[in-house]
Every structure is written in C-alpha cells, then in structure tokens.
C-alpha cells in the first residue's frame, strides 16, 4: 500500500470506531512508525456518523485529513453513504455484511469491495462488544501496518487493566483480532 497508508473508519456513535482507531495508531507508533489519528468531531454528541482518519507511515505525516483513503471500513448504512467520497480506484473498501440495501452506495470503481461478516461473528462466536476489535484485525490484515503481535500488545496496553480482573477478556479480544484478520484473508484468497 501507499506510504503513508490512509485509513478511514466509519460507524455509528457507540460502535467503537474511535477507540479502535486509537489503539491501532498507538500500535503503529509503538512499533516505531509515524502515525496520525484525528476523529471527526462536531457539535452532535449522539446520533451522528463517526469517522476516524488514520495515517501510518515511515516519515512525519502531512495534512491530518485526506481526500482519498487506501482502506475504508464502513460499519453502518449511513457510514457507507458517508464514506463513499473517500474511495477511488486505489481503495480497498470493507463493509459489514449485515448492512443491507446499500448496493447503490458502494464505490464501484474501488480496487476491491469486500463484505465481511464481522457483526455476525461477534454476536454468534465471540461477544458483541468485541465487534470493533474484529474490525481492527481486519484493518491490520488489509493494510499490514503492524503485525498481529504488535496489535495484541497495543490492545493489552489499552485494556490490560480490565484483563487483570478477568483474564478471559484477553483471550476474547485476541481471538477477535485473529478472526478479523482471517475474514480478510479468506476474501483475498
């Protein structure tokens, strides 16, 4: 992918796109890369589409926002419509397979459009609360910005205090990361 890699993550408020973006750029920073993350923020606190703009590269990052992303991940129908503008022929576009009725909103020109059943797996196999961690796993697999071990370290750094109380949560989060990566690998194979 390009350097820096540009990622736009979008979802409904509460889906956890901002926290997972934060963990992802921290993983990149800890591995010695340059990273920049900026959330979109406005006057609405609830009920808006939340977009996280992330860039990861080898040198200091230029402008904080960008016009076109290398990877777009959209997690709701509104997020699909909102993020259409960030996709061009170089973009890998991921959206959750549970989103219906957005076929007309998907970027036809994108390099690749993939529907991944992250929400379904979160609900049926893991836990709805690790949905965003599955998405992080998918994002790092699609972009190779950091390795799986580095990603796990960053999750540990952020959520370690919760894992101390309940070590099963660690297992659950790491599993979610791996499942997310696997979803992308399966699509790419």
């Amino acid at each position: 992918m390009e350097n820096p890699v540009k990622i736009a993550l979008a979802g409904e408020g509460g889906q956890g796109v901002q926290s997972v973006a934060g963990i992802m750029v921290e993983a990149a920073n800890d591995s010695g890369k340059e990273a920049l993350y900026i959330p979109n923020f406005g006057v609405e606190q609830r009920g808006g589409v939340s977009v996280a703009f992330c860039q990861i590269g080898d040198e200091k990052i230029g402008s904080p926002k960008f016009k076109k992303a290398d990877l777009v991940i959209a997690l709701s129908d509104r997020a699909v419509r909102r993020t259409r503008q960030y996709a061009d022929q170089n973009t890998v576009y991921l959206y959750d397979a549970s989103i219906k009725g957005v076929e007309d909103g998907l970027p036809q020109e994108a390099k690749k459009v993939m529907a991944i059943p992250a929400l379904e797996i979160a609900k049926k196999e893991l836990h709805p609360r690790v949905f965003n961690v599955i998405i992080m796993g998918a994002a790092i697999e699609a972009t190779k910005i950091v390795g799986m071990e580095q990603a796990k370290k960053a999750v540990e750094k952020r959520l370690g205090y919760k894992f101390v109380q309940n070590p099963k949560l660690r297992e659950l989060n790491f599993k979610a990361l791996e499942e997310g990566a696997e979803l992308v690998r399966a699509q790419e194979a």
Partner: protein
Amino acid sequence: MSMPAVELEAKTQRKQAKPIEGVKKVFMTGNESVAWAALAAGAEIMYGYPITPQNEIMHYWTRLAPRYGKQFLQTEDEISAGFTTCGGVLAGKRAFTATAGPGNILMQESMSMAEMLRLPTVVIVQQRGGPSTATVIYSQQETTLTCFGGNGEGLRIVYSSSSHQDLFDYTIKAFNTAWKYRFPTFVLGDGYQAKMRESLHIYDPAAKGIKMEKTVPFVGQEGMPGVDRAPAHLRNTFNTEEELLEVITGYVAEYQKIAPEIIEYEVIETADAEIVLVAHGIVARAAWAAVRALRNKGVRAGFFRPITLRPFPAEQLRKAARTAKKLLVAESAQGQLLKLVQEALYGETVPIATYLMPGQGITAEELSDYVMELRSNKTNREGGSR
C-alpha cells in the same frame, strides 16, 4: 491558621518535583502536549473557561497541575479568564489561558490591556470555524483576530504552530518571549492540532539548555516606591493625545527593534523555484508535502512558512519572492495570511495565486493538483485564485 508541617512539606515537594525528566517520546493530542509544555515551562496557574476545541488543555492541566503544586481557576467567562490571567501576571506568576473562536474575541479587551500595560500574558488559541459559533472543528480564521484583535497597534507576539512538537516547543518559548520582552504572546494552533494524535518529544527545558526567564511581580513589591525602588507605574488611561502618542511611539519603536530577534520562519528550496507555496500552521504541512511531491514530478516548487505571524518575516519573504516566478498562498481562511503577505511584498511584482478555503482543511494532494492546474493555465484569473 498555619498548615501542619507534614502537609507543608508535601506541598513543597510537589512544587519542586519536575514534571518531565530529560527527554521523552510520547504519542498524544495537541491539547495534552500544551498542558505538558506549560507544566514543563514552570507555569504556575492557568485561568480558563471551556470552549471546544481547547477544552482538553484545561482538562489535562487540572489533572496534572495539583501533582506539581500548580493552580487552576475556572472563571465565569473568557472576559474574566483574560483579565485574571493579567492579574496573575501582575502578581508575578507565570500565568496563561487558552481559548478559541468566540472566546478569543472576548479575550481581546484584556489582551489589549496587556498590550498597554506591557504584561507578559500567554494565550494558547485553538482556532475553530467562524464567524460566530460556526464550527467547533477547525479553521485559520483567527489569524487577523489574534494578531490585531485589540483596539491598538497589535503589539503582540504570535507563533503559529504546525505540529505537536511546535505546540510543545512554542508554548515553552511563549513564556520566555513574553517575560523577556513584555509583550502579550500567543501560540496559534487550531482544532486539528488540538484533537489529533501524533508523536513528539516532550522534555524538561533544562535538558535542552533552555533557561526560563525570571518572573517578578509588577505590583506589591517590597520597599518604598521612589526611595528603595522605582515605582510601579502601570497606566492604561491617558489624559492627553500627546501623552498617549509618546507612549505608543516608544512601544512601537521597541517592538520594531526587538522584532528581528523574535522573527522565525522556514524556507526550503526557494532558490530555483518557479512557484513558492506560502502557508502557516497546519496548512504548512500540506504545502511542504505538496512541494516534495511536485519536486518528485520535476516541478521546481519551493516552500515558505512564517512561524511568527507577528512580527511577520517580511524581509525573508521578500527575499524568497524575488527569485520566484509565482507565489501560491494557501490557507483555511479567506485571505488573512494573504493580507500579511501582500503587506510584506508591497512594491514587488511577483504574481500571487491563492488557494483559500475558509474553515476547511487543505490536503497536500489538492495543493499539488492545483499547482499542476496553474502550470497548465487552466485557471484563467490573474495569478490564479481559488
């Protein structure tokens, strides 16, 4: 009532503890880096009133300050935050405040008084969209306001930061510039810088050989005025036009004299440039990235960034402009930097193209595309403007 000995000792220890030892690489928001910089600079008190996107400077300061025996006062509005900052300075405290947008407007009265009384106030501004409430997000529309917002001559120092490292470095520097020269000093950031996360090095100023200027109270000093010491004569009211003229003429002369010591700028690859991109603050990052991309395509592009907007690096810009075929001024405002550039270049003949996006961010890609467009003459207006 006196404080128990144990408590007093703990308080003294807190005051002496260094917030940062040596140099440390961190990854944080711009607001957080400002709070750390103020602590590292030995700021003693922050006065403030909440406004987005500046809020977290207050939040981090209130979280960190008590650990180091520092203080915070939340005032009832920005008028009060500005005046209490003046009050803190009068008492000899390294005091500061932070604001944005409409809050910046309300602080103009107190900062105008700081100009008149020559008070070393420090204000961090994180620009948001304007006019009025507009957006809480981002702009460069507070450039004119921050440089010239008072009723007076704009006798202020304004540093425009373009990264978290700048926010940290120039917040520390702002305290020293203010206390050394006694002109109100501003660090002009923006909502993007406030909220984004990126890496920077934070440090104890001593570890970099930076000595903090001594602070002294302006009022309430010991001894008999006129006998043991010079009287503190702080005056912002004058009876005659002549009196005022004399004082202001003196201030202006002093400001002009110290300007060369304060002026800072960045200039890269302008010697052979056919087009020089001029930008400040965060837009300078896009401009610099665009220049690199253009150079890779074989386009001879150069870069000029004023770091101080007041005083403005006019001579340095003229020098860069003299060899260029064209300038391109880019900013997230409708020509506020442009005015400073035009004033600096008065009499020069170099054409100035513009890329003006009030209240919206500017990316490297759009700037390099626009330069290519200008070169292919698709833009038919004089110099080229958008």
